[in-house]
C-alpha cells in the first residue's frame, strides 16, 4: 500500500538536493582518498615515486617471500584463533549470566564489562606492559605457540567484552516462552540450554567471534606493549618495516590486512542480515 511506497521517494527528489550530494560526495572522496592511494600504490612499479609507473605484483611477491612477515602473519592468525575461542566462551557465559540472573552487584559487573571497550588503548597497553613486566612476567623462551600466551591474554581482555555485548543484545530478543515450552515438553535445564538458547544465540556468537578475530588480528598498540622481542605480529611487523622507510612492500602488506579484515567483516554482517531477515519473516 501507499505507506510502503512513500518511504522511497524517487531519484528525482534526491537530485533536487544536489548541494547536499556534492558536499557528502566530496567528503567521502577526500576521506577515502588516503586508503585508495595506499592500495593503488601497492601495485605501482616504482619504489619511491608517487606518479604511476605501471602495474606490478612484485611487492606482493616480495611480501610473500619475506619470511619474517610470513612468521608474523602466522603469529597473528594463531593469536586471533585462540583469542576468538576464549573470548566467545567467556563472552557468552558473561552475557547469559547478566541476562539471566539477578545477583548483588549486577550493575557494577555490567559497568565493569564495558570498561575495556571504553578505556583508551594506550592505557590498556601501559597496564598490560606494567602487569607482564613486573607483576606476572610471562616466561620467555617457551615453544610456539605458548610464547604467545601473554598476547593472547591481553587480546582476550579487550575482545571478550565486545562478544559479551553482542551476545547480550541478541539475548534481549529471546522469547522466554521458548524455554518454558522446552521444559513443558520434558526437557531438562541442560537440554533446554542446548536445544533452545544456544540456537538462538548462534548469530550473536558468530558475529562476536568474527569481531574478536578481527579485533585481535588488527590490534597494534596493546600487542606492541605486551609482546616480547621474539614475538612479532603482523601489525607490529608493518610498523617496524615503516621505521626504515615507506616502501611499496608496506603498502602491499597493509592491503592484504585490509582485504582480510573487510572480507571477514562483510561475511559476518551478511550472516547477521540473513538471520535478521529470517527473524523478520516470522
Amino acid at each position, binding site marked *: 500500500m501507499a505507506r510502503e511506497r512513500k518511504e522511497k521517494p524517487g531519484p528525482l527528489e534526491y537530485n533536487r538536493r544536489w548541494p547536499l550530494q556534492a558536499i557528502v560526495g566530496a567528503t567521502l572522496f577526500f576521506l577515502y582518498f588516503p586508503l585508495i592511494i595506499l592500495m593503488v600504490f601497492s601495485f605501482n612499479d616504482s619504489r619511491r615515486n608517487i606518479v604511476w609507473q605501471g602495474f606490478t605484483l612484485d611487492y606482493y611477491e616480495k611480501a610473500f617471500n619475506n619470511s619474517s612477515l610470513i612468521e608474523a602473519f602466522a603469529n597473528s592468525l594463531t593469536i586471533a584463533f585462540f583469542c576468538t575461542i576464549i573470548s566467545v566462551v567467556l563472552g557468552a557465559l558473561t552475557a547469559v549470566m547478566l541476562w539471566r540472573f539477578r545477583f548483588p552487584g549486577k550493575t557494577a559487573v555490567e559497568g565493569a564489562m564495558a570498561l575495556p571497550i571504553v578505556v583508551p588503548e594506550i592505557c590498556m597497553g601501559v597496564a598490560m606492559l606494567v602487569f607482564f613486566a613486573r607483576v606476572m612476567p610471562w616466561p620467555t623462551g617457551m615453544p610456539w605457540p605458548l610464547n604467545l600466551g601473554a598476547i593472547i591474554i591481553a587480546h582476550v581482555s579487550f575482545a571478550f567484552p565486545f562478544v559479551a555485548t553482542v551476545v547480550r543484545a541478541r539475548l534481549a530478543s529471546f*522469547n522466554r*516462552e*521458548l524455554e*518454558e*515450552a*522446552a*521444559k*513443558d*515438553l*520434558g*526437557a*531438562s535445564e541442560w*537440554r533446554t540450554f542446548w*536445544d*533452545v538458547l544456544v*540456537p*538462538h544465540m548462534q548469530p550473536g556468537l558468530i558475529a562476536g567471534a568474527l569481531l574478536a578475530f578481527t579485533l585481535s588480528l588488527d590490534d597494534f598498540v596493546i600487542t606492541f606493549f605486551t609482546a616480547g622481542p621474539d614475538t612479532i605480529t603482523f601489525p607490529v611487523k608493518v610498523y617496524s618495516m615503516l621505521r626504515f622507510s615507506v616502501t611499496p612492500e608496506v603498502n602491499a602488506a597493509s592491503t592484504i590486512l585490509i582485504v582480510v579484515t573487510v572480507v571477514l567483516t562483510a561475511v559476518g554482517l551478511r550472516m547477521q542480515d540473513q538471520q535478521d531477515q*529470517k*527473524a523478520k*519473516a*516470522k
Partner: protein
Amino acid sequence: MTEAAIAARPTPHVKDNAIIRFENITKRYGKVVAVDNVNLEIREGEFFALLGPSGCGKTTLLRMLAGFETPTEGRVFIDGKDIAELPPNKRPVNMVFQSYAVFPHMKVADNVAYGLKMDGVEAGESRRRVEEALELVKLGGYGDRMPDQLSGGQRQRVALARALVKRPRVLLLDEPLSALDAKLRDQMRSELTSLQEKVGITFIMVTHDQDEALAIATRCAVMNRGLLAQVATPADLYEFPSSRFVADFVGSVNMFEGVLADDKHDEATVRCPEIAAPIYLDHGVTGAQGSTVWVALRPEKIEMHKRPEGAAPMKMEDAPAGTNVVPGIIRDIVYLGSETIFEVELEGGRRVKTFRSNLTRYDQEDFTWDEPVWLAWHACSPAVLLS
C-alpha cells in the same frame, strides 16, 4: 437461580472426577497477592476457561498447573496427586503458549517430535504419532516446513500438535486466540471446540475476552484481583451473574443502584432513584428489606415502543402484567448492520442502552433521533445483585 436459558453444549466426555483440584491456593509476590485463597475443581473432559481482566491472577493459576509458578500456600492436585514437587518437565500436562513458542530453528515435524524425543519414544513410533498429530490439526504434509514459512494460525496448530502428541492429561492454553486476526479467530474458535471433542482431553484456557470464553468453554471461572468471582456455565454467567463485577465484565449491561422495597418468595420490588417507577421482579431476592441492591438489565432484553408525543402518558398500571414500562427519548443511534444500538435517556437523565436486531430490510419500525419511546422489559429479565 441457575437455570440456563440456553442448552449447554452436549458433553458426553465430561466425567465426574475432578482431574484438577486447587486447594486454598494463594500466591504472593512480596506484598502483592496475585492469587487469593482459590478453591476450584475442574472435571475430566471439560473445556474450562479462566476469564478475567489482565492482572487478575488467571495466568498465574495456569502457570501453577504447568509448574512455572509455585503456590505460596495451598496445594494443587492432578488426578488426586499433589504435584507441588514435580518440575515442569515431569508433569502430565502440556501447554500452548500465547506466542505459540514454536522452536524457530526446527522443522515442523521436529517441533512436534521434540516432546516425544525427550520421553525417549522410539523413532518409528514417534514418526507415526507426529504424522497423526499433524493430521489432527490439519497440517498433514507440512512436516518439512520451517516455522518461518507458516502463517500465525498454522504456527498455532503446530503448537497444538506439539502439546497433544504427548497425550497429556490436561492441555493448557494461554490466550490461544489473542494473536490471531478477527476472521481467523472466529474460525479457530470452532476448531478448538471440535478438536477438544475429538481428543477428549481436558482443556483449560486463559482468556481476557468474554466472547471467547462464552463461545468455547463448557464452564468458566471469572477472576478478579486474585479472587474467584464466579464459576459457572457460560449461560449462567451471562444471565445469572453473582456480582456487579461479573455482570459488567461479561457482556454489556445497564446497572441501576436501588433499594429493596419489597421481597416475597415469588416477587420483589426495587426502587431506583434513576428510574421514576419501581422495578417489579417476578422472583424473590433473599436480601434484607431496605438494603442496597443493584439491578442489572441486559440491553437485548429491553423492548422499545413508539410513544406518540400527544398521547396520554401510559401508566405503569396499564402495562401488560409482569412488564416494567418507562418513558424515554432516543438520544443516540449506532447502526451496525445486523443490529442497532439505541441510547435512550430516561426522565431523570440516566441513559439506557438497548439493542435491536434489524430483522427486515424495509418496513422496519422507524425510530429516529430525539423520538419519545417506551422502554419495556419483563419482570423476569433483570438480575438483582447484592454485591
